[in-house]
């Protein structure tokens, strides 16, 4: 592939921005770093989610399933393997699991896929619990020396990988194939694209990333319980953040994650007794007022400017 001057400039700017983000722990080691961890976590999750769901329009609610698998990989392996190996292992397991799920379900479309992915978290949770229950208590405590700054850097590195990977996929034959599938799957099939293979391949990306995110965050939680590791709310948060930003651009989810994290923070600090209620209202407002997210809003604004300029 060939890089234009704009590409190189964008890459350099992105690298610079990430470099600046990496300095956060030196500036503040407390509250803002904590928010930074949340933002980095959701950026990795929402961007990888949008890589698949953006072009294909398949709404996946499987994030919690892969995330939970990742936390358990760390929980079960922390005594025997180094942390970096666990993160890679979690990514591998997440990708394999996603491939299996993809093979089974991606021939389905629309609502069948949504329901299956929603059930997947519960399925995997029960499977892991069954194993734990039959083998005695294992993998419940994750005691490491990894602190908040370390977790933040891990997540930031993962986010960088996701963005780079997404950018490369967007330029590849696979990305092109997926855009065609998203526009019209029948046309894609008739053009000789193996639609099932393309979808399964891309579905492995959010699977692997969510599992790696879970593996990285396990030391932060210290104690791993199925009900906490597989909390379904995570899947919905990722979807709403990606939609708020806009799933049609690589950087779209990022502009959703940052305001949404601050919104959640403001809600939970100001409405301690109605947090869930206010978050629910925020969801509704976003869906009604910004159906295409900030990216859509920006496109509309640009479109209007161009039009008035032309006149």
């Amino acid at each position, binding site marked *: 592939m060939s890089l234009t001057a704009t590409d190189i400039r964008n890459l350099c700017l992105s690298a610079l921005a990430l470099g600046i983000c990496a300095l956060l722990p030196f500036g503040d080691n*407390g*509250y803002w770093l*904590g*928010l930074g961890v*949340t933002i980095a976590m959701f950026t990795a999750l929402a961007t990888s989610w949008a890589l698949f769901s953006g072009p294909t329009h398949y709404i996946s609610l499987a994030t919690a399933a892969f995330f939970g698998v990742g936390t358990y990989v760390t929980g079960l392996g922390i005594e025997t393997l180094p942390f970096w190996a666990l993160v890679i292992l979690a990514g591998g397991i997440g990708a394999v699991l996603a491939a299996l799920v993809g093979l089974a379900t991606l021939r389905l479309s629309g609502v069948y896929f949504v329901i299956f992915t929603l059930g997947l978290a519960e399925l995997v949770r*029960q499977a892991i*619990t*069954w194993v*734990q*229950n039959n083998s*005695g*208590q294992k993998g*419940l*405590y994750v*005691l490491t020396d990894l*602190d*908040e700054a370390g977790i933040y850097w891990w997540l930031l590195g993962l986010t960088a990988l996701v963005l780079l990977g997404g950018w490369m996929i967007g330029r590849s034959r696979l990305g092109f194939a997926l855009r065609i599938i998203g526009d019209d799957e029948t046309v894609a099939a008739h053009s000789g694209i193996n639609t099932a293979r393309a979808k399964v391949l891309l579905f492995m990306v959010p699977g692997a990333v969510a599992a790696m995110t879970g593996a990285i965050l396990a030391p*932060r*939680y*210290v*104690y*791993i*319980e*199925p*009900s*906490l590791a597989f*909390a379904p*709310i995570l899947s919905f948060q990722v979807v709403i953040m990606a939609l708020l930003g806009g799933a049609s651009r690589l950087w779209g989810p990022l502009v959703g994650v940052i305001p949404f994290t601050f919104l959640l*923070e403001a809600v*939970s*600090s100001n409405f*301690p*007794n109605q*947090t*869930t209620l206010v978050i629910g209202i925020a969801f509704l407002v976003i869906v009604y007022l910004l159906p295409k997210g900030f990216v859509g809003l920006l496109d509309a604004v640009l479109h209007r400017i161009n039009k008035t300029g032309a006149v």
Partner: protein
Amino acid sequence: MNRRPFLKLVSAMTLAGALAATAASAETIRIGAVAPKTGPLAGGAAVTQWPSIYLWVDQINAAGGLTVDGEQMMIELIEYDDQTNPGETIKAVQRLATQDDAHFIIAPYGTGLNLAAAPLFDRYGYPQIAVSAITDQQADLAAKFPNMFFTLGTTTALAADVVSVLSDMRAAGQMGDNVAMVNVADAFGIELATAAKPLFEEAGFNIVYETSYPLGTQDLSPVIKGAAAAEPDAFVAWSYPPDTFGLTEQAMIEDLDVKAFYTAVATPFPGYGARFGAAAEGVLGAGGVNPDSDAFKEYAAAHEAVTGEKPDYWASATTYAALEILAQSIEAVGLDRAEVTAHLKESSFDTILGPISFDENNSNADFWTVGQWQGGVFRGVASRGRDGSVPVILKDGWE
């Protein structure tokens, strides 16, 4: 449209807020609290955690506050809902420590949420007097988080004392060797079952029926039917709140004929006694208190007067005792958190449960382990070092 009144209102509110903030920071002790108000653990926290916190703040402020370095300081409570989500617990503790500048933070609710918060309590030097965090890892955790204290006991002690209660009944000729043991397939249920099984075998019991069920199982009749078919002398369930109620209900329906019936978490809730009435008589459960002690009676009366709810017969009183310990430490050494932690490690505290002190693993060695519904009250029948336990009675039917 006239925007003036709105502007005036906003500026007035800002001003009032600013004044209140300065007034507050001058002479109050800011106490942070984070626990579930929504999510799976909200029900338990609404019985055990929040009412005791409100009662404690209410009582201290009604008495004019705490005496810190000769000065009376009122308590300002800052509370957050963590939605039973460890990520939210972490955010809330961070917010309390860095944005709200809390002097002290009350330990969260539940093992998972307490441990998620432990690294932050440790980093900011807050003493964490955990209550609803039962674990066998106290030594490891206290070594890693030297500010973390444990009050409610260990997993193994809870399991072992059930075994010893049943052993005593067997020795007295009240029951035979056969035990049915079931557990909820979730973290704490698995921990308890794992601890209990070898103890039962060591004590010479036959586990004639053993099974588990997933968290949230609605239909528990197969569990009770399976147990009934094995004709056990005792039925032991390492259960969580919803299944504690569900199993009891099924046992009533099936008229499960056992000499001892044990369910774990939530058995000491006042709601349990209220729901099952006379059928609850003789049911064994995790925890206990001495409901006849004057201190507990006084606490229960105040609890109901202030919050409108009855305390449970286990962790409620311990939650309140942990707050009493915090208040006594603050009055003894002031608002310096490191000094409070040091004071916690070396002193003995007079609480509604009796004296409490912490050992080299930051653990309170004296706690209730098994209780039983007797005459409409859940009474402690086994403990580690607590006074006032009563003899166990036989479970005699479900009428």
